[in-house]
């Protein structure tokens, strides 16, 4: 019965439609004009949503870049303080031996403190003196020692020397500490600000390019901390990653693309590659911790372990890119080689692989760029340790650039914020370089068959 009713309804509806169709449509009727206007407005609205979405994304990108850049550019400069240092022979080399060992052990810190006391003779109380010594970084004494070891004739003389300043003074000089706020709300007290002003008035404060940031390892003192140690660690880690994932990835890609029969094994491999590409990176860290450290007892915090872990992560990227590159080589090349009597392996090694190489390399560089930016799995295998020394090999404890960024971002000192941003800039510069190289390779060797 209901079927019948609905059929009748349909019929009625159909009649209305056919009646309407018989009537000529008045396209200029106000109703249709209105309707079209409305539809075009909707069209414009929809289009603007898209534009807004893109603008939002680009805005986010710009904010990110700006916030990093504005925070970090100042880290490339470091405040130096000019002091008159007396290279007192009684302190450096009392017996006039001239022996570098004796000079190396001398109390250069004391010389700097003496110079500061001489500069501000009216500072007497113990706590004020401690504040006063904060003007110059604890690392300045090493610079002084280097200077004397290089040029022993300095002993006994008095020289005006630019010394690296402490991090709080650096912050004040760069304007990150506002001297006008209440004394209790800033890191430097009024006396310290007064000393600073006096030094500035004498022209004894200067910002110089901070080469140490690029040449030294990590440090607890922001003004002494550098990224070279982390950069070397990243280099060794990536080297291990590349040495493992590139040959393995390419060989696997060749097998899957050129030789593999369609069977269960191949299918399982394919499924696994796709899944590995989507496994969260931290899970690879857990794998590395369990297998490499707990089972195989490889050294903790070593680039070898980091490289092994990252190699597993980059493998899917390289395999997928290499397969695409190999697939893009036209079959006619293979047929020609086979027709001339080459064996299948010869066909691949002599013809397919060289032609696919640009694509494979592009994929590999992109995979390496990902590995360079990876942090989470390396936290699991102990690459977060505080390491001052520059690693000398893949078995030494090391950290990598992104982990260094993470460590500095966690540090409470204000001065580490600019170091972090500057380290991010360096890391991004490397990534841009690598990706640019990949794009260049693709453009240069791109071939349409």
């Amino acid at each position, binding site marked *: 019965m209901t079927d019948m009713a609905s059929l009748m309804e349909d019929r009625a509806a159909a009649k209305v439609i056919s009646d309407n169709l018989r009537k000529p449509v008045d396209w200029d009727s106000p109703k249709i004009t209105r309707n079209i206007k409305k539809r075009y407005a909707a069209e414009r609205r929809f289009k603007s949503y898209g534009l807004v979405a893109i603008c939002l*994304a680009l805005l986010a990108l710009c904010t*990110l870049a700006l916030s990093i850049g504005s925070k970090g550019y100042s880290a490339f400069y470091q405040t130096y303080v000019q002091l008159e240092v007396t290279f007192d022979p009684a302190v450096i080399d009392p017996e006039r031996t001239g022996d570098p060992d004796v000079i190396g052990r001398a109390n250069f810190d004391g010389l700097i403190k003496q110079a500061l006391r001489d500069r501000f003779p009216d500072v007497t109380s113990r706590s004020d003196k401690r504040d006063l010594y904060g003007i110059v970084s604890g690392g300045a004494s090493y610079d002084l020692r280097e200077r004397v070891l290089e040029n022993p004739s300095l002993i006994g003389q008095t020289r005006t020397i630019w010394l690296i300043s402490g991090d709080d003074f650096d912050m004040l000089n760069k304007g990150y500490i506002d001297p006008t706020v209440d004394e209790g709300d800033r890191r430097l007290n009024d006396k310290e600000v007064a000393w600073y002003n006096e030094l500035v008035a004498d022209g004894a404060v200067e910002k110089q390019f901070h080469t140490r940031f690029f040449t030294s390892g990590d440090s607890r003192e922001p003004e002494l901390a550098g990224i070279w140690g982390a950069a070397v660690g990243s280099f060794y880690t990536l080297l291990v990653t590349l040495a493992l994932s590139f040959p393995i990835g390419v060989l696997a890609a060749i*097998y899957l693309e050129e030789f593999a029969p369609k069977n269960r094994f191949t299918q399982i491999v394919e499924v696994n590659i796709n899944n590995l590409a989507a*496994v969260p*990176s931290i899970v*690879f860290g857990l794998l590395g911790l369990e297998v490499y450290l707990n089972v195989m007892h490889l050294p903790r915090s070593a680039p070898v372990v980091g490289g092994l872990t990252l190699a597993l992560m980059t493998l899917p990227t390289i395999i997928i890119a290499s397969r695409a590159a190999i697939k893009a080589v036209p079959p006619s090349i293979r047929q020609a080689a086979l027709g001339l009597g080459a064996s299948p392996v010869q066909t691949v090694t002599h013809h397919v692989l060289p032609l696919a190489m640009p694509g494979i390399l592009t994929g590999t560089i992109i995979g390496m760029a990902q590995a360079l930016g990876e*942090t989470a799995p390396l936290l699991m295998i102990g690459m977060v340790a505080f390491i001052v020394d520059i690693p000398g090999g893949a078995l030494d404890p090391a950290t990598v650039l992104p982990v260094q960024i993470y460590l500095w971002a966690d540090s409470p000192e204000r001065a580490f914020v600019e170091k972090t941003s500057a380290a991010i800039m360096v890391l991004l510069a490397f990534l841009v370089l690598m990706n640019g190289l990949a794009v260049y390779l693709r453009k240069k060797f791109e071939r349409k068959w």
Partner: protein
Amino acid sequence: MSLSFLLLAVAALCALSFYFGRQRAVALSGGRHSNLHSLPVHYGAYTAAWCGLPALFLLLIWYMFQGSVIEALIVSDLPQEVIGDSGRLSLALNSISQIAAGGGEHLTVSPEIVDAGRRLANLQTIANAALVVVMLSVALAGLVLSYRRIEADMRARNNVERISRAIMIVCSAIAILSTVGIVFSLMFETLHFFSKINPLDFLFGLEWSPQTAIRADQVASEGAFGMIPLFVGTLLITLIAMCVAVPVGLFSAIYMGEYAAPKFRAVAKPALEILAGVPTVVYGFFAALTVAPFLRDNGAILGLDVSSESALAAGLVMGIMIIPFVSSLSDDVMSQVPKSLRDGSYALGATKSETIRQVIFPAALPGIVGAVLLAVSRAIGETMIVVMAAGLAANMTVNPLQAVTTVTVQIVTLLVGDQEFDSAKTLSAFALGLVLFLVTLGLNVFALKVVQKYREKYD
């Protein structure tokens, strides 16, 4: 001799054997290559393979077992009461390895430990020397044996190709091996964990506070290992991220694909892809130092109490990170809708937006759902942003202005620093890792299935 020198030595031996093999083949041919079954190169490659591969294989096996064998030897000599207590044992092993490495003068330890340290150093020296001797002799034996097998009619090419094919198969199998490795390593520690904590408490517990008492006499909480609060936090942040990434990603994909002029696309598309290439630690820094304070200050102006580790900040930034992922996947999906559907819609007089909304979008919906699911799985597994910008306390809340914690944050906090592989605290990280792995795997498999089915529909 260090590892790199050993590898270099083996490589040199390989090069040498390649040369010898080739020379011998040339000598056997009597000047005419047609007397040989294969090219001289193949004979060289044959000897090189037999020289290098067994040695490398041996090295791999050796490194897999050296550590555990030496440790077992050392442990077996320690006094019984030390072996029985796992805490003391790991402490003792630590001091032993310090002493063996030449340090540990400041340690106050029993003479047995010092002896054990010396023994360990001894054993390591012996093991390294033995490795060098064994490896080099294996390489040499391979060289000599394969060299002597070379004859003019030996099928060297076929041999070499069989070997290279085997190597390729092994390389492809590594993808399987690593999945198996992940599953087993997570399983092993998770089972260990479940022997201490009831699995039901873990899966359905509503409280997470992994701090357990270190000493028996310490007054501390029992430690609660309920993962529900962690998942609530993870899902909250994921949801916020999706609220940013899905509309922005989808609309930018539509605009790029349908409206944008080629010039605009040439600039905007790579710019969007930059977002995907920025390391997550950079996003984390951005979230923690720029977005979170911004939200907190503006919230204060509006009279809202925004935590400085709010879920909102982490979620927003994670959303930004995922935008290019959503947009490129949905772009793929929508460009696969057949042209005939589009043409049909235009022929009926539909505008572009009407075509997109009522024809292309419904047709592409399954694929888009798949793309969004992939993005969700990525958001769930994302670590650095939440480690740096989200909180540590496991609050059961859906208020985006409060601090929540996530599964990945907890894994990192539990495993960074000192690890004791006999405490539930450390082991719980592996249980969380297993759950994370299974959830993301499930999402991925499902999403890939959906996308694939969708592709087949229009192929």
